[in-house]
């Protein structure tokens, strides 16, 4: 059940904390180890709850902010068909945000609280969305690479130990496949087009490749949340493992398109069966994360404005509902 508040309404956080006995934690870990799903009202360690709230809400925020780079291209899509597809994709992103917000709400955080944390800048979203979509080819690259990397991350999350998150991810993964294919389809068209169109596709790959690799997060050496999340079966593979998988499946796709990977050190290693890649610019990753990417301020300003501009709609809907509830009661 996606209802928060059924069991927590009367219990302050402190009461839950106090109840955290070692036997409970052991029993919890045993359930997780046995691949049992944890459901919203089940007992769980506070740290597990907090980790999930942080991860799921950041994920939801990413879906919401992720609508912006693509939204910019709605009025400039090259054909009516492409426009309709892009509109449907962006609507899906909003839907994904909503599935995830409701999954996070089961953990005892309110929607408004999460939205407030996004708007105040306290909560983070995926740094990939702080890069601009400069040309139509970027819409192709976003679908192919950004959604491709997201799928790689999200498929293992379908088996996450927390039931509501796992169910949301299953629904999302079913829909993401369309997103990735529509992106690749855009690039196929461009790569089969004029030299100028193909150059545009190459330029988009050059700009999106490295940020897409950064989507998997810091390297395993640097990743601070990994070990505990693995033990809790929130996470199933390490950042580097997932990044490697993504590179291995994506390079042949680029070859099919006839595009060059913007990495001189990229090389297939016969002995491991994997591609070796060049060093990722982690300073760039940290800079974007710290708020200094190309579009951080613009994204947040636009989100805040949309929220403020919608305030009268939310108020009017509420007033209408109250008026009719009063009438029905009379």
């Amino acid at each position, binding site marked *: 059940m996606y209802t928060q508040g*059924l069991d927590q309404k009367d219990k302050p956080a402190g009461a839950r904390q106090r109840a955290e006995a070692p036997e409970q934690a052991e029993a919890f870990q045993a359930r997780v180890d046995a691949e049992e799903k944890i459901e919203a009202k089940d007992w769980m360690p506070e740290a597990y709850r907090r980790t999930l709230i942080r991860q799921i809400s950041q994920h939801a925020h990413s879906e919401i902010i992720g609508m912006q780079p693509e939204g910019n291209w709605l009025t400039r899509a090259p054909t009516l068909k492409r426009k309709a597809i892009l509109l449907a994709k962006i609507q899906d992103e909003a839907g994904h945000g909503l599935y995830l917000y409701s999954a996070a709400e089961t953990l005892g955080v309110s929607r408004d609280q999460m939205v407030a944390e996004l708007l105040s800048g306290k909560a983070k979203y995926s740094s990939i969305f702080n890069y601009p979509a400069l040309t139509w080819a970027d819409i192709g690259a976003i679908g192919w690479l950004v959604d491709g990397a997201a799928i790689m991350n999200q498929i293992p999350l379908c088996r996450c130990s927390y039931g509501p998150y796992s169910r949301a991810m299953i629904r999302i993964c079913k829909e993401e496949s369309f997103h990735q294919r529509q992106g690749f389809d855009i690039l196929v068209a461009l790569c089969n087009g004029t030299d100028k169109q193909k150059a545009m596709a190459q330029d988009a790959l050059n700009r999106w490749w490295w940020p897409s690799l950064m989507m998997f997060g810091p390297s395993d050496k640097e990743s601070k949340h990994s070990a505990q999340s693995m033990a809790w079966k929130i996470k199933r593979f390490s950042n580097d493992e997932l990044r490697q998988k993504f590179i291995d499946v994506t390079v042949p796709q680029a070859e099919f398109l006839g595009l060059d990977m913007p990495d001189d050190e990229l090389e297939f290693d016969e002995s491991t069966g994997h591609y070796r890649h060049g060093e990722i610019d982690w300073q760039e990753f940290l800079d974007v994360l710290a708020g200094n990417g190309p579009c951080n301020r613009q994204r947040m300003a636009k989100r805040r404005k949309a929220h403020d501009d919608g305030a009268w709609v939310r108020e009017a809907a509420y007033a209408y509902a109250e008026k009719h509830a009063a009438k029905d009661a009379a």
Partner: protein
Amino acid sequence: MSEKEWPLYEVFIRSKSGLSHRHAGSIHAADDQMALDAARDTYTRRNEGVSIWVVRSSQIVASDPAETAAFFEPAEDKIYRHPTFYDMPDGVENL
């Protein structure tokens, strides 16, 4: 935030006639009609449903997971409810 939060609704969807409604997720809406519309837009963008129920989450009465063992205990020791409890004599058919 000074605004009041819209109430939470649970969404149940019948994927096709002949099947029961099944919990799909939840949404926030100001009233029942808006909840139905939002549930449609959020959970049935790919023809996942032919019927939707929405109900305010606060109206749902749920069993307590901490009491699960005790609550379901009465069914634990009644294995004779299952047909496999009974050994049928050889030669008896259609039973």
